[in-house]
């Protein structure tokens, strides 16, 4: 079995934040953190990118509106032109309403799909669940994972550093 990395458990969010900051200052980049609730500022320390979900939602909204407007135009101009009360075939006034509705639908769908994509879901296997400290029975702590793929990673050195930072347990994680 190859090694995925080491995972350190901390007792409280402040210790986790402090440890993550120190390890980042030491040059570690391939880190991940796990906690039962949101820890403010942790994402920035771990170097996570700002969410791009708003752009996905905007793109989904525009795509929905444009597609449906194109569909309406195709059906009234080309496929089945019907004269309704002498109004022009391209009657943008009522079409706007439908385009708006589908724009909202597209935005909502893009938001949902984008959220799944950004979170890497659905995911059926993650090595971190191999760690004994990460189980339901012993879980509920604040964890910092250093991946073995990190260029700064040296098994003994990294484990020692984490222990000195106040980790309750430091455990190797099988891939």
């Amino acid at each position: 079995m190859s090694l995925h990395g080491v995972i350190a458990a901390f007792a409280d969010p402040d210790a986790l934040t402090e440890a993550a900051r120190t390890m980042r200052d030491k040059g570690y980049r391939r880190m991940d953190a796990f906690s039962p609730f949101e820890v403010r500022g942790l994402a920035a320390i771990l170097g996570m990118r700002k969410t791009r979900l708003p752009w996905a939602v905007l793109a989904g909204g525009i795509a929905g509106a444009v597609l449906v407007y194109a569909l309406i135009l195709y059906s009234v101009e080309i496929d089945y032109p019907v004269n309704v009360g002498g109004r022009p075939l391209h009657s943008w006034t009522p079409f706007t309403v439908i385009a708006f509705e589908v724009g909202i639908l597209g935005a909502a769908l893009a938001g949902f799909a984008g959220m799944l994509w950004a979170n890497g879901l659905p995911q059926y296997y993650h090595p971190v669940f191999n760690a004994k400290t990460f189980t339901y029975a012993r879980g509920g702590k604040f964890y910092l994972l250093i991946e073995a793929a990190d260029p700064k990673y040296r098994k003994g050195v990294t484990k020692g550093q984490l222990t000195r930072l106040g980790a309750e347990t430091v455990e190797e994680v099988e891939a």
Partner: protein
Amino acid sequence: MRRPVWPDGYVAPAAAVAATGLVLCCAGLFVAPRATLAGWLTIALFLLGMPLGAMTVLMVHGLTGGRWGDALRPPLRAIVATLPVALLLLLPVLARLDLVFPWAAADPAMLPEVVRQKLAYFNVPFFIIRLFACALAWLALGWLILAWTDPDTEVSERGTSRGFAVGFIIHGIAVTVFAIDWMLSIEPDFYSTIYAMLETAAEVVGACALALTVLAAGRAIETMPGGEEDTALSEDVANMLFGFMLMWAYLAFMQWIIVWGGDLPEEIHWYIVRGRNGWQYLLWLLIALQFVAPFVGFLNRSVKRGHRGLLALGALVLAGHFIDVVWRVRPPLSAAGAPISWPDLAAMAGAGGASCACFIHVLARPDCISFWRGRQVHG
């Protein structure tokens, strides 16, 4: 030249502008009475819409609560305090109702059949009675709202929420009557049941935009305490204005789509008058200022958190609301060919300056509001 201190230093210049405008308006009444009165009516309706909208917002906030309203309260109270002045601005129009309202014309036989059938409602005595009833209701309501939202006195929440609820109903009826009387009846053959709602929504947008602009001009609302964790208070306020603006846009579009769908001569005429003789450019400007630009701005979080962004958004929406009122009221009043003439600008300066001076004065000294309420200020 140094910039005068905000807001005290701006009362005198506004009063000077008002005096100049009023003199020009008096001259205009002799030279071109109809054009002057048309311009005056437009600006007076805009200025009266401000306190009415502020009352609506204060009552909505009184019923629902929320930090956004606490932030907006001081400027909104100052806007409500301009109500008596704004009501006075309508009086000059009463002298010559026949110049602006076709149904008040001397010879009813000249009117179209459909208008003649409405004369039981649209006649001068009843019109004036309705105006005074509305004015009384608003003055009483404004007085009560200022008392209920007074930051210095503790008022029980249960008592005021019942008051706000009853007041809201009365206010709704009064605004409906007023919008039909003073705006719709300029074209008595047209009717639109959504119009009073549209006017209410527009007033709310205007009052809220003015309050946001004043807040952002006076101090840094984006750093004011009281927002949610991670969300600046300014963002809440901007989002509320965004919501009000969308409400207005929705109602305006609904009226258009229904009239367009019906395609009846006496209804679509309302839009045809407003889509010709240069008014169509005002419409494009209105859509740009009160829908497109704020829509993009309000969706952008950094704009809602920045001082300049908020100031620009508030000012844009306020300008858009002004154009909205002009576009709805002014076009049928002008003779073909000359959309806007100098009496319009004179009326804008006269009435606008007077109202501005009043508003800034009250804003600078909030204790004036207590004086208006007829209560001795202690200390």
